[in-house]
């Protein structure tokens, strides 16, 4: 991936009429999108009882991913920030309902009504600050918080993402955990640079009772990633399930960091080659109160 559209312009500007058309009518992209959304739907692990569900397609664009949902009989609501993309979706007669919406502003949906959410290559856009009022951390928080509220208990959300760096993936994942989701990252084809795909699989609370099916297998990440047999070389799962860790308590004690900690840090800095003052008896000593 040599060029990243996120780095060029904000989504509502990058996907203008020309780009939206180019994107949607490229047979290569259609194929990739179909594959990604099929896999996302599979990871969503909806109960296999033939009942259509109400799903959310976040960053639906021109409805390429929604088509897969419709083919599987589900009703979906798609939202996107680019009007040009949505226009193309209308042109292609997407069956889902479309909303012009910025996911970083929160979804604004009623609580507990959505049976699942997918998002193909969209969440990484949230990590960019395209306007002075944008703060990626807050936008991610608003997004995941509102998503958590609108999903039914036990529903899943699957995001296919292209994080730019490790830090970006961390940022997305930690925002999701903070909103209350449990889950982790599933990496398809981890050893191939071309077809490597990352999916963020998030579960909202315990499995729900109103989904009316024995769901014993669905609970953990492994069960679903073990299912695929053919193409996958390996599936890495990173589970971060600990939702109730009191974060603040871990940080510091009241006394402050202490001499040992300072010495350790200075040693670390020295190893990095930074200019660090010598260790003396004054190191990490407290100032007198009258100072």
């Amino acid at each position, binding site marked *: 991936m040599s060029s990243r559209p996120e780095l060029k312009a904000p989504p509502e500007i990058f996907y203008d009429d020309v780009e939206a058309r180019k994107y949607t009518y490229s047979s290569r992209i259609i194929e990739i999108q179909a594959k990604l959304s099929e896999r996302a739907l599979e990871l969503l692990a909806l109960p296999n009882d*033939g*009942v*259509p*569900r*109400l799903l959310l397609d976040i960053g639906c664009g021109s409805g390429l991913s929604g088509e897969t949902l419709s083919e599987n*009989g589900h*009703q979906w*609501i798609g*939202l996107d*920030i680019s*009007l040009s993309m*949505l*226009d193309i979706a*209308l042109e292609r007669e997407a069956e889902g*309902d*479309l*909303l*012009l*919406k*910025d996911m970083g*502003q*929160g*979804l*604004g*949906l*009623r609580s*507990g*009504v*959505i*049976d699942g959410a997918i998002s193909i290559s969209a969440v990484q856009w949230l990590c960019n600050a395209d*306007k002075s*009022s944008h703060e990626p951390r807050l936008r991610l928080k*608003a997004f995941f918080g*509102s998503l958590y509220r*609108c999903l039914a208990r036990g529903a899943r959300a699957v995001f296919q993402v292209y994080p730019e760096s490790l830090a970006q993936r961390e940022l997305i994942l930690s925002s999701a955990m903070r909103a209350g989701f449990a889950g982790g990252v599933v990496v398809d084809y981890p050893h191939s640079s071309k077809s490597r795909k990352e999916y963020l699989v998030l579960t909202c609370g315990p499995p729900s009772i*109103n989904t009316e099916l024995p769901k014993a297998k669905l609970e953990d990440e492994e069960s679903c990633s073990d299912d695929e047999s053919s193409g996958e070389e390996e599936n890495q799962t990173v589970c971060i399930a600990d939702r109730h860790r009191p974060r603040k308590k871990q940080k510091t004690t009241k006394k402050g960091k202490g001499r040992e900690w300072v010495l350790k840090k200075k040693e670390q800095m020295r190893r990095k080659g930074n200019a660090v003052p010598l260790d003396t008896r004054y190191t990490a000593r407290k100032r007198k109160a009258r100072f």
Partner: protein
Amino acid sequence: MKLLTHNMLSSNIKGVTNGFPLLIEVEKVIEKPVDFNPDFLKNMFLKVDWKALVDASRSLGYAELPEETPESSAIDSDDFLRKFHHALLELHLEEGALVCPETERKFPVTKGIPNMLLHEDEV
């Protein structure tokens, strides 16, 4: 926009405590046929806010739905399900606006797509 979506959507302007249901200003309504699926309707019946659906369908000019929330046994009747299906999935608000019940902020609907983008001071 289907009434199903309307039933899920609320206004999330900063400071609004109860942004549901959004009021509807109608300019143009169309009907699109959708495959009838009783299983989906039964699933959705538990989730929709009945009063909001009835009010919304009336404002689109469809008055067949009963005013008070039907008993859960009603979903076995085919006649009821057909009406429910029509109101929930087949009625589309094509042109018009959604209005936030608290702030009266209008979200315009064009070509069936509501513009829910908020201004910077509303986030």
